[in-house]
């Protein structure tokens, strides 16, 4: 130990001597040939040192995310898909709502890009609308279930004790009932409409977020940097805003990115089974179900919604992967 301390002190002294020399004469002036070297002014060195801008966490996240080619490609495809689905029906100027028996089950053509269905309605326009509705339902379900779940989990973790016990038991009871049965029961009791459908999906899925956020908040509250902040006299508000939220934010964002394709998938599954949206409302799942009935004769009617569904879920998952890499500083090089 003593030896190490000795070396340290010697090194410190040498450093100080070097600094002194630098201050007096610029860089080792006795060895510099003035004709070949220009003097570097001290202030310029300082400028170079502080040239790196102050990087904020979210800027860094954005930078890393946009460097990820796969995730960016997925994002571009996803955004294009959303734009097309929003604009598509309006620029085509085709009546895709009323039945048109003279144009039943047509193959793809210049007039009907994806053909028509068994009622003679333009499939492209219907698909566009279906994508919009599927995504809307998925986004609403995600936002509501994660908001409720996070708040529930955070309260359970923050209050703790007896309240926490009861809140967690409620989640366990809910989780022990198969979600398909629960959704069916809710739809039977409340009637089948888009709001009740959303309610049924949220009701069976918020518990995952609640558990995750509760675990994270419990872990963060015990962490030494929160303790350090408390010793410094930080208010509860500051601890939540500066320590708990930023550290849980990436988890919530990942949860959102993972939930959207999940909800798109389960909505499509339920609609395919006939449990979801009822006609005249339709989504990707119900189009898939209609297409499946005529699959042997008009395979394009099933392939089109199936491919779209796959693209949406795949791109969402890829975007989620990119986000996870970007949000976790430990994974960065």
């Amino acid at each position, binding site marked *: *130990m003593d030896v*190490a*301390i000795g070396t*340290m002190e010697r090194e410190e002294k040498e450093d100080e001597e070097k600094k002194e020399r630098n201050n007096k004469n610029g860089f080792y002036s006795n060895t510099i040939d003035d004709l070949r070297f220009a003097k570097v002014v001290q202030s310029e060195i300082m400028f170079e*040192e*502080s040239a*790196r*801008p*102050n*990087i*904020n*966490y979210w800027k*860094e996240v954005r930078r890393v995310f946009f460097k990820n080619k796969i995730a960016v490609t997925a994002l571009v495809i996803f955004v294009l898909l959303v734009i097309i689905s929003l604009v598509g029906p309006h620029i085509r100027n085709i009546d895709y709502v009323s039945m048109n028996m003279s144009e039943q089950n047509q193959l793809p053509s210049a007039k009907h890009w994806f053909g028509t269905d068994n009622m003679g309605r333009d499939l492209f326009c219907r698909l566009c609308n279906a994508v919009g509705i599927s995504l809307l339902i998925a986004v609403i379900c995600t936002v509501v279930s994660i908001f409720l779940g996070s708040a529930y989990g955070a309260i359970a973790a923050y209050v703790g004790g007896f309240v926490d016990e009861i809140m967690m038991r409620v989640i366990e009871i809910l989780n022990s009932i198969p979600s398909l049965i629960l959704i069916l029961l809710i739809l039977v009791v409340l009637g089948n409409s888009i709001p009740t459908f959303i309610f049924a999906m949220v009701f069976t899925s918020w518990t995952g977020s609640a558990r995750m956020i509760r675990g994270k908040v419990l872990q963060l509250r015990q*962490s*030494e*940097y929160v*303790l*350090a*902040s*408390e*010793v*410094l*006299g*930080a208010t509860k508000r*500051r601890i939540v805003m*500066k*320590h708990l939220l*930023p*550290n849980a934010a990436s988890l919530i964002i990942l949860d959102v990115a993972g939930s959207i394709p999940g909800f798109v998938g389960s909505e499509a599954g339920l609609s395919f089974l006939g449990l979801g949206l009822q006609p005249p409302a339709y989504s990707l799942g119900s189009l898939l179900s209609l297409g499946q009935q005529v699959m042997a004769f008009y395979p394009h009617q099933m392939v089109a919604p199936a491919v779209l569904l796959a693209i949406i879920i795949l791109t969402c998952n890829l975007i989620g992967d990119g986000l996870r890499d970007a949000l976790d*500083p*430990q994974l*960065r090089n």
Partner: protein
Amino acid sequence: MMDSSIIFEVKNLKKFFSLEHKSVLKAVDDVSFTINKGETLGLVGESGCGKTTCGRTVIGMYDRTEGEILYKGKDIRRLKGKDRKAYNKEVQIIFQDPYASLNPRMTVADIIAEGIDIHGLAKDADDRRNRVNHLLELVGLDKEHGNRFIHEFSGGQRQRIGIARALAVEPKFILCDEPISALDVSIQAQVANLLIKFQKELGLTYLFIAHDLAMVKHISDRVAVMYLGAIVELDESEDLYKNPLHPYTKALMSAIPIADPKIERERQRIMLEGDVPSPIDTPVGCKFQGRCKQCMERCRTETPMLKEVSKGHLVACHLIEEEINI
């Protein structure tokens, strides 16, 4: 009237944790000591003997079960409003694990400036930046490091960032909770010397918790030895290492390796039998009774009190009491 040279006065401090089935974990059991201004009080003992809990309870991070803690003559539990804020500014902590004690989502500059922000010490953004740069230089880091996140730093560098965070609020007292035991031996000296340097320059007072006996001797003015939640011996560090009295301290001191092969070969180690008993439901009497070779009848019935045997040298042992008749 309070002695103004005393920073912390701890009287009969107890910290119990209640467990399931009505059992009680006595992490700190009847501990009394004082910390004088400008000194370093070392706190040593085996893992799990309650050093960290004791330190954290003293500065008020944990609520005490019983006893009294006076900071500059005032009970820390009664500090409210302005006094509380001043106390939070004057009393700081450096943690053991430099990987867990810094927020990975904040830049180094924001971490260091946390106290500055909380207490509004900087006049404007420029002042804040200057203060942070100054602190970075003080702990031997480049000011350019302020823009980075902590995962880019080594353990020793992180620990220095933790020290800079504690120093940012210009504290009077720092609880050093094993600040060097998680570091490499070569870095330990670096960080320990930095702490000594700041103590001299800024007039700081430390409560230094560690289990590395050689390091504690190097850094402390006085050393308290803890065993199973109680202080068994307290003395000036030189004296304690030369002349340990309590059987446990003797065994502890005999375990220090000596950096000289000739002496090291002849070193007699006092081997203790058994393990440290569980701090849950401890028996009455001396805490050390189960492992002490000179254990007497009295040790099993009566808890020995910390008594002064010579100036500044306190021991809690019936054997020593009877030997020198106090």
